[in-house]
């Protein structure tokens, strides 16, 4: 129906049912998708990840009414993975819709939903990247959460559940807004699980005000058939802290794109992550950290453990504006290849326009170290146990960088659970 032939994968499966004319932003985003399509390999930002898999899939709108018993089972799975039991504050989204009955809202914060407020009202560039454009056209619902000045809102579980019959692919595109006001604190454990063949395309609009603190850990444990395309836009004000972590376990094809901007002096951001992939899974963590103010700190450690024919992608850019003197930026990317079919593609990038800065990055790729294995074997530890120790230690190193103890415990649990499955 679209007369224009796009450069990439035709996005009409989405455009035909998206809110393409709801507002200026939607129109701009729709035009962009109509012309550019969804990227095949070749676009620099998508050099290693192609969305060819989305071509000709008739993604339909996800249903609100799904089998309640399955939802409860999946929710219990989230509780097991995260260790955050039924007593914890939680916000539940099923197929992208807010599920009030299963949610337990935290005290002292303002919570509403995008569906209630009616329209996308944020200042995110609708065409800055494909994932954002897609979400802008398609978003129907999402969490709108504000932590007021000086409030410590504790720990919140944000559970996303996707559910569809296997022969009927659906897509959902929630748009979440999380704002922590001056001096406020919040920890969010964000877990995505599901069943069936679906596309989950969440967008996170995150604002951390002066002296505010947000810890945000994501566990992506989608169905192994599912597609997951997430994008975060975070802005961190003076002396604010955004400590983020992405653990990628599920999905056949997944990508989390993080755009973090340090907009005022003294802010700090962590964009850490781990991708644990097997089979034919493809996982991509791409980030752009912009230092737009002086005296900010950014830290990034991303680890990949890849077995079978899995493919891990890391693209991380640190951009230091001319004004951002006294920047302290550090980036580390490591990959452990556990089989000969596995592949890692990494592009750690520094783009620096200020001279009084301290920026460095490092990357290492390889198999388990023979010397380390030998050391453990020589002390009577079996080969399997030695491998297990080394792989878990490799991961522990990055999970340990999560600042919030509750989130750290949850992530450690999730990694242990993954390892038990992997080793079995």
């Amino acid at each position: 129906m679209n007369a224009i032939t796009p450069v990439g994968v035709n996005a009409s499966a989405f455009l035909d049912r998206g809110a393409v004319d709801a507002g200026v932003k939607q129109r701009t985003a729709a035009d962009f998708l109509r012309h550019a399509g969804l990227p095949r390999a070749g676009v620099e930002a998508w050099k290693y990840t192609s969305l060819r898999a989305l071509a000709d899939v008739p993604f339909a709108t996800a249903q609100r009414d799904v089998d309640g018993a399955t939802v409860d089972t999946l929710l219990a799975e989230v509780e097991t993975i995260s260790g955050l039991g039924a007593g914890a504050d939680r916000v539940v989204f099923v197929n992208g819709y807010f599920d009030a009955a299963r949610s337990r809202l935290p005290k002292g914060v303002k919570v509403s939903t995008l569906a209630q407020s009616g329209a996308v009202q944020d200042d995110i560039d609708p065409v800055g990247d494909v994932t954002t454009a897609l979400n802008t056209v398609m978003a129907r619902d999402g969490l709108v959460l504000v932590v007021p000045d000086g409030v410590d809102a504790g720990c919140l579980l944000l559970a996303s559940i996707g559910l569809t019959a296997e022969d009927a692919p659906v897509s959902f595109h929630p748009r979440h807004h999380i704002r922590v006001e001056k001096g406020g604190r919040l920890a969010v454990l964000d877990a995505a699980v599901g069943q069936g063949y679906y596309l989950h395309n969440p967008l996170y609009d995150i604002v951390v005000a002066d002296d505010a603190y947000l810890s945000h850990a994501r566990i992506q444990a989608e169905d192994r058939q599912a597609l997951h395309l997430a994008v975060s836009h975070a802005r961190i004000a003076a002396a604010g802290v955004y400590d983020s972590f992405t653990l990628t376990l599920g999905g056949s094809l997944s990508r989390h794109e993080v755009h973090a901007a340090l907009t005022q002096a003294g802010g700090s951001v962590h964009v850490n992550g781990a991708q644990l992939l097997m089979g034919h899974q493809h996982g991509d963590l791409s980030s752009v950290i912009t230092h737009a103010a002086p005296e900010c700190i950014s830290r990034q450690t991303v680890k990949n453990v890849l077995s079978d024919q899995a493919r891990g992608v890391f693209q991380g850019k640190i951009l230091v504006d001319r004004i951002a003197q006294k920047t302290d930026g550090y980036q580390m990317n490591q990959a452990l290849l556990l089989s000969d079919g596995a592949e890692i593609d990494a592009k750690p990038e520094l783009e620096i326009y200020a001279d009084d800065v301290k920026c460095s990055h490092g990357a290492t790729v390889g198999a388990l170290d023979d010397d380390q294995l030998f050391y453990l074997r020589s002390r009577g530890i079996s080969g399997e146990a030695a491998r297990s120790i080394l792989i878990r230690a490799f991961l522990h190193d990055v999970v340990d960088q999560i600042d919030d103890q509750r989130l750290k415990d949850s992530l450690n649990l999730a990694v242990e659970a993954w390892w038990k499955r992997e080793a079995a």
Partner: protein
Amino acid sequence: MPAVAETRKAVETLGQSTYKWGFETDIEMDIAPKGLNEDTIRLISSRKQEPQWLLEWRLKAYRSWLEMREPTWAKVHHPPIDYQDVHYYAAPRKKPGPKSLEEVDPELLRTYEKLGIPLHEQAMLAGVEVPEGQEARAPVAVDAVFDSVSVATTFRKTLQEAGVIFCPISEAVREHPELVRQYLGSVVPVTDNFYAALNAAVFTDGSFVYVPKGVRCPMELSTYFRINARNTGQFERTLIVVEDGASVSYLEGCTAPMRDENQLHAAVVELVAMDDASIKYSTVQNWYPGDENGKGGIYNFVTKRGACRGARSKISWTQVETGSAITWKYPSCILQGEGSVGEFYSVAVTNNHQQADTGTKMIHIGRNTRSTIIAKTISAGQSDSTYRGLVRMMPKASGSRNFTQCDSLLIGDRCGAHTVPYIESRNMSARVEHEATTSKISEDQLFYCRQRGLSEEDAVGLIVNGFCKDVLKELPMEFAVEAQKLLQISLEGSVG
């Protein structure tokens, strides 16, 4: 010479405060009309009395070039280039008859003198007898390229005795067609990229080196490139083939006179190393970088690639890039032979409005291949400098290793330094390590030097030379001295 004295001397030469190599030589030229079409290519080919196969090869390249677009991924910006506004052929007019050194135009010799070609080499070029002791001390064979034609080649005899062929590539086409035909375009195919295709279509000259089995080339081979005539692009093509167990060290130096219009330089260098062969390729590039307002300067779009075809072969690239308005250059190694080694040592300095996007590619195909990358980037003024490098481990590259280190130094707050490494591994036993840092010259180091009586400019020179030491030490001796001076001159006016 102590470092301080060396630095002082370099700074003294700065007194002239202009591009030292910015002079023009007035010689009669034989020039083709502006523009590029099949007729231009036929003209070049016939002027050079080339065989039919080479003309066909050029035309094939030209036809693919027409279909190609200029690459846009590099971090460089320039106004569109009008490829029809360039002379594709310019040769100094020669007297008929065999080339002999006595016939070299005295104008040319003066040019080389200003270029600082060592005296004994000038004497060779001028056809003067060389005292015996001198040749034994530091023999360097020079294939001087003056615009598009190689004017004279020295030390031919010594090389011939060793069995080494070192001659202009146009001569090699006539005298060793089987070798040229076998290897030309085998490392950089005509369709490789936009500029390589253009070069294949219109290349006018360059050097050809062939080192037979088991021969260690008895001297360092050297070429000086110079762009002289107005509006001529320089399209050099260099081909070096080193057979089993042989080795060669090749030096390439570039200078160009001062110009207002931007000039295009699109060279191709191909290296082939067979079993146990080794090639060391060193470059000092100081083409005219444009003035302090970014006017003029050379566009240097170069494709350099080496193929380690044989087991245990080794190719080492060393470059000091201080010149050119725009540099687009990625000397690469294809490590095919088992246990082959690739090295890349680079210093790139940009000042004023220069732009450099340079780095390397290490493609590990064979087992137990190794590569090392050391890249030092220095940006000053309002320049932008990017390191862009690829390390790829193919599925069969078991046990291969790479180590990469990229360091950037920023001088002033209006320049940019960028690092863009691509790391791709498809073999679990291959190991890749990469590290990169960006910093400025530390106040402590500057203070220490100033306190000992060095001026700020001297101090910066000293620190920058120290920063680049890992690379400079890979250069052959006389290049290393020249390179140190160049670093100083390039950074002139960037402090204080």
